[in-house]
């Protein structure tokens, strides 16, 4: 269930449940499995922060995603890759209920955050988004000053802040932007370059201290140098945050992600609508060196997609 939905994984205990794997995390990390895109040793199974179980996502009558089961591990970077229309962004947006903003969007199955059903009654989507932040494909700073962009989140969420100045500095430092903007905090964020704007958006997200940061193709509008900086940043942020990234760029997934989920789109019987589904989920090193599913291998090696 954890590893994949459509293929039998070769991991011996692929059916380990979420509650089991949390006990794995309590123990020191066993040196199982190869490193991901990074030189890190990872446990065979992630400690779940967010967990999808048999998730279907609909837009009106159209089923965009079918039967996704995935575990996003604590302090790990999980990448979701796959061809256009495979539903990876749709899945990402359902993880902090940003899908709610799209009329007609509906989720079935279960998405849980620390065991709580994220779509259960009594769950406040605003609270969900405060704990699970999001960085978008195109940098979308507010048309305010750099300072106000960072301070916005803490202000509107009513965070108790001793010193907003310190918080702004801390967030900008964490996003590796402080040195570039410290002398122009009162200037408009629109004066920054695209890469700086995207780091500002990351800083803005960090400022509300979420546990998870979702990134929807955060580098697709950036040049390679800006992309490299964001990737370095993600590496640093993993110490404090859990990161889930959707990317079109397979090299990026290979470079930054600890685990990678490969999605594809399949035409549904009868209607011909293309529905996204999870093909394979495993350590990044395994996905890119020895994928279990033929479709993954074809995609990775460029034969399809």
């Amino acid at each position, binding site marked *: 269930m954890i590893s994949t939905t459509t293929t039998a994984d070769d991991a011996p205990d692929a059916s380990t449940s979420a509650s089991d794997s949390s006990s794995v995390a309590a123990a020191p990390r066993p040196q199982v499995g190869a490193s991901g895109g990074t030189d890190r040793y990872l446990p065979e199974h992630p400690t779940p922060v967010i967990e999808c179980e048999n998730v279907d996502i609909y837009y009106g009558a159209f089923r965009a995603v079918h039967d996704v089961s995935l575990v996003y591990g604590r302090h790990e970077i999980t990448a979701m890759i796959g061809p256009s229309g495979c539903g990876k962004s749709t899945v990402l947006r359902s993880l902090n209920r940003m899908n709610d903003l799209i009329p007609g969007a509906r989720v079935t199955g279960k998405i849980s955050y620390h065991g709580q059903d994220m779509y259960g009654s009594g769950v406040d989507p605003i609270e969900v988004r405060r704990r699970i932040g999001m960085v978008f494909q195109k940098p979308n700073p507010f048309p305010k000053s750099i300072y106000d962009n960072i301070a916005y989140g803490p202000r509107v969420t009513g965070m108790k802040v001793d010193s907003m100045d310190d918080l702004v500095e801390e967030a900008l430092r964490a996003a590796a932007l402080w040195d570039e903007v410290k002398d122009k905090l009162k200037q408009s964020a629109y004066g920054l370059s695209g890469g700086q704007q995207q780091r500002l*958006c990351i800083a803005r997200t960090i400022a509300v201290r979420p546990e998870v940061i979702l990134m929807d193709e955060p580098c697709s509008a950036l040049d390679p140098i800006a992309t490299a900086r964001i990737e370095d940043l993600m590496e640093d942020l993993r110490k404090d945050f859990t990161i889930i990234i959707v990317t079109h760029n397979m090299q990026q997934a290979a470079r930054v992600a600890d685990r990678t989920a490969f999605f594809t789109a399949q035409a549904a019987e009868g209607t011909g609508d293309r529905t996204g589904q999870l093909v394979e989920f495993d350590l990044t090193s395994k996905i890119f060196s020895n994928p279990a599913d033929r479709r993954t291998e074809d995609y990775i090696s460029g034969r399809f997609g």
Partner: protein
Amino acid sequence: MTITADGGSPAVGTPRSKRGGGFDPTSLRRQSPRHGERVVMGVLIAAALLSVLVTVGIVLSLLLPAISFFREVSFGEFLFGTRWSPRFSGQESYGVLPLITGTAWTTLIALVIAIPFGLGAAIYLSEYAPSRVRKVLKPVLEVLAGIPSVVYGFFALTFVAPVILNDLLGLDVGTFSVLSAGLVLGIMIIPTVASLSEDAMSAVPDALRHGSMALGANKMRTTLRVVFPAAVSGIAASIVLALSRAVGETMIVALAAGTQARMVGGPTEVGQTMTGFIAQTATGESTPGTLSYNTLFAVGLLLFVITFVINMISIRLVRKFREAY
């Protein structure tokens, strides 16, 4: 090989032949005289110039009689005098303040009505209303803008003053008051505020809303702290346009505010506005060149200057506070 500035053809291969005589496929010269384009451009320039000329003409025709007016009446007496009786022979007095207070009260009351209701409607339509509701409500709102102002004036006179103000609210107002005129004026300009503000807010990219929501902001905060500031230049423009319409509106105030030019101290009083005075006086009976004729133009010029100044100030303010996306 020389290439001249007037496009003399460089010495390439065959010499140029005249059109019709043979087509030179490499020629960069104009292949047809394109008279049509010149004609179109001329018409467009004429259209642009016409509005400029008309504006200049109007200002001049206001200015010249107004200058003769100010030869006889001093600026100070005109602007700060508190008695307006230009046609009371023997005791003429040209203090325009009573008319200004009349206009100020009706406009103020109109804005007090139009800004909250107009912005409320705009925020609801742009941020909260489901698209089905918006598709019905917005055209209805715009129908309100199409009602002739004389109908509004009649409405003020026959319904707002006697039924709403007297009977329902129990206020002690007569048939004419700046309150009933201002209220109806306010209703008249709600669609201007609502429709243009809604356009401005709808134009704010969703990416900004999503950015705000993703930080855990609720809808109200997103609207007030991201969408509203980003749309503020359009919203301010809508209010200024509505304000100018309220200041310049004639029919409602001529019908409902009264015809006595006196200093207006409160909303229940009778008053005359600048436009009301012009409508009442410009009847064709005043002889050109006389002081009472020139009075009309002095008031008209003042009206023009007031709306012009309001426009300038609001442009400055908007530049200062807007958050351009």
